[in-house]
């Protein structure tokens, strides 16, 4: 029984690790490119879930939210960027965009509360099948969510590596002056990166929505872990983000079974700190 419980926990850790890495990637992209700590990332995640709720309820099928949540978020993030961030992205200290981000978080969260209400809601599982697992069962949907996250990350890598915009993004993040001199439309790249990062958060929210409850402040649940992952991962490293997210989730999951869950949380955070000690530049050096 113990073995199956542990195995269950590990699989669960992998699932959450994949989803967390996708959300964290959005945060990394925005920080790496724009030097913006996107405090509103959690609120964007929540909006993704809330939109998924409305899609599932009114269009009858949750699946469309995988398209609609990112789209809605793209529009919202363009509005946010154009109305505030773009004025202070270049040449201004971190503190400025940090405040803008806080302000955006307030606005987004409160608007979500006003529209969605304060009560937690639920979306029926779009894939209500279970996989037999020793003496227990495990929801198939979660495996789908993990795979989808990985696929998205893969698509992102492909995008960055193979497309023109991807090239521009990489060039700008390495050296924006040179990139600009070479004809890269840097302001557009900035906006695009911000949108891309936000969309990843919303996608995470939409993916998670059938697994958990949907509330207007569910962003708080994931934002801290995402922050930690981003930093332990090594600033801007995509493989590092996945590894860090997996380590965090797996450690927490494993120890929750073996000891008390609270201690497990502490241990997983401790592991993160230990990694930082051992490798202050982050897990992967590239």
């Amino acid at each position: 029984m113990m073995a199956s419980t542990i195995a269950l926990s590990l699989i669960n850790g992998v699932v959450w690790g994949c989803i967390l890495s996708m959300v964290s990637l959005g945060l990394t992209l925005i920080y790496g490119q724009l030097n913006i700590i996107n405090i509103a990332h959690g609120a964007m995640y929540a909006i993704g879930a809330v939109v998924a709720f409305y899609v599932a309820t009114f269009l009858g099928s949750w699946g469309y939210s995988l398209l609609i949540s990112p789209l809605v978020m793209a529009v919202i993030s363009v509005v946010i960027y154009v109305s505030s961030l773009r004025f202070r992205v270049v040449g201004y200290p971190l503190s400025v965009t940090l405040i803008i981000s806080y302000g955006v978080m307030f606005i987004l969260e409160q608007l979500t509360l006003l529209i969605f209400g304060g009560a937690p809601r639920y979306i029926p599982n779009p894939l209500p099948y279970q996989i037999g697992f020793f003496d227990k069962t495990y929801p198939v949907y979660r495996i789908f969510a993990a795979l989808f996250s990985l696929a998205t990350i893969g698509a992102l890598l492909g995008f960055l590596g193979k497309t023109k915009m991807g090239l521009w993004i990489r060039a700008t993040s390495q050296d924006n002056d040179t990139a600009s001199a070479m004809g890269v439309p840097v302001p557009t790249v900035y906006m695009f990166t911000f949108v891309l990062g936000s969309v990843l958060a919303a996608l995470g929210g939409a993916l998670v929505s059938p697994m958990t409850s949907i509330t207007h402040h569910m962003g708080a649940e994931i934002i801290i872990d995402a922050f930690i992952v981003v930093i332990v991962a090594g600033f801007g490293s995509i493989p590092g983000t996945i590894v860090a997210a997996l380590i965090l989730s797996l450690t927490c999951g494993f120890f929750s079974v073996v000891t008390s869950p609270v201690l497990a949380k502490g241990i997983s955070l401790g592991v993160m700190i230990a990694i930082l000690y051992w490798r202050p530049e982050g897990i992967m050096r590239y």
Partner: protein
Amino acid sequence: MKGGNMMGKRKIIFVMVLTLIWMHLGAFSSEAAEKKPIRIGAVYDLTGGLSVYGNGSNMTAKAAVERINKTGGIAGRPVEYIVEDGATDAATGLRKFRKLVQKDECDFILLSCNSGLGIGAAPLAKELDTIAFSEGTAREITGKKGNRYIFRQIDNAEMAAIAMAQFAAKELGKSAYGMGADYEWGHSVVDTTEKVFGKVGVKMLGKDFSPIGTLDFVPYLGKVPKGAHFIVAGYFTADVVKLANQAWELGLRVPIFVGTLQSIRYEDLGPGAELVWCGTYGSRSLDGYPSDVRSFQKAYRQIVGLDDEGWDRTGKLSAEYIWAGWEGVYWVKKGVEESGWTTKKDNLKFMKALEGARVKASPEFPTGSKMMRAEDHQVIADIYVIKGEKGKVVTKGCMRGEELLPQYPPNVDFTKEALQ
């Protein structure tokens, strides 16, 4: 003549002094006090995690004030109601408490269900010499951390757990597993339940507490032993939805007794809805109330805008908890009218009037008869057991206040407390 003028001046001064004395004797001011409105201030969580409670209580309290003003006010005085947002943050709530008293000159304060606020409010209420009614669930608000200024117009979490434990022992089985969020409330639900279980022969096979903000209960649910007949879960709102769904998905089919179902719909509990039970402070559905209470409850629901199922017009607020606003206002009315309270100088009279007071099921107290216990200022009211069943949240049982009373003795005696 000089002498004559002096006499005249002295007379004038004499009359002036007499007038001053007369004014201070209150002949003039008490008349003004009678027509002066009574201000009830409320610190409710309109935003943040507890917003479904705060907005609900605000709605019913406002309705109560409106009804009172239509029917003559309190002791003939009109009532003003001012609400401030506690934002689910005790520090903010305490500042608003101060503002309502010091800036808006409120005479009585209603406090939200935020336990931190309820506890922090005790010293503040004493400092500001203002009586407050707390809807918080922590036991010690009307216990060791409270004082004579604080009253609670609704049962607390420990009382709910006692009722829930007895019901579960009778109906659900002889062995349980405890889970909860690792903070005071989560623990109090599980620990209190365990204590009661000990007395009625139910075995707690184990307990596990998850850190606040846990997203995923699958690892903890995986630990539930096979022999558990039901689960006691000290979890709140959003976590309850997660728990029910995740339990179902893991293949668990045992009943889960949770701490609250406020504003949670049957549909939101997913396929796990049939598993969920809850010991709560009021019946969500109208027909869950006993027949002697039902007509009053129906009238109350019509006034505040709740339907027979227990939902408000926006469909966002459910009935179980939010009557505390309405009845809180009526406790104020009762205290003022029975003690002859006119200003805060009469606070002690007000307290004495409520200490030990009993009310019957009525339009003012539509959730049933109850008693305001003297020693700890805790209301002793009925606890309802509700459950998800066939598409609705139905009421399965009720532990009446009289049954609860002997099982919940007070641990303080405020009647011995001097005011300043």
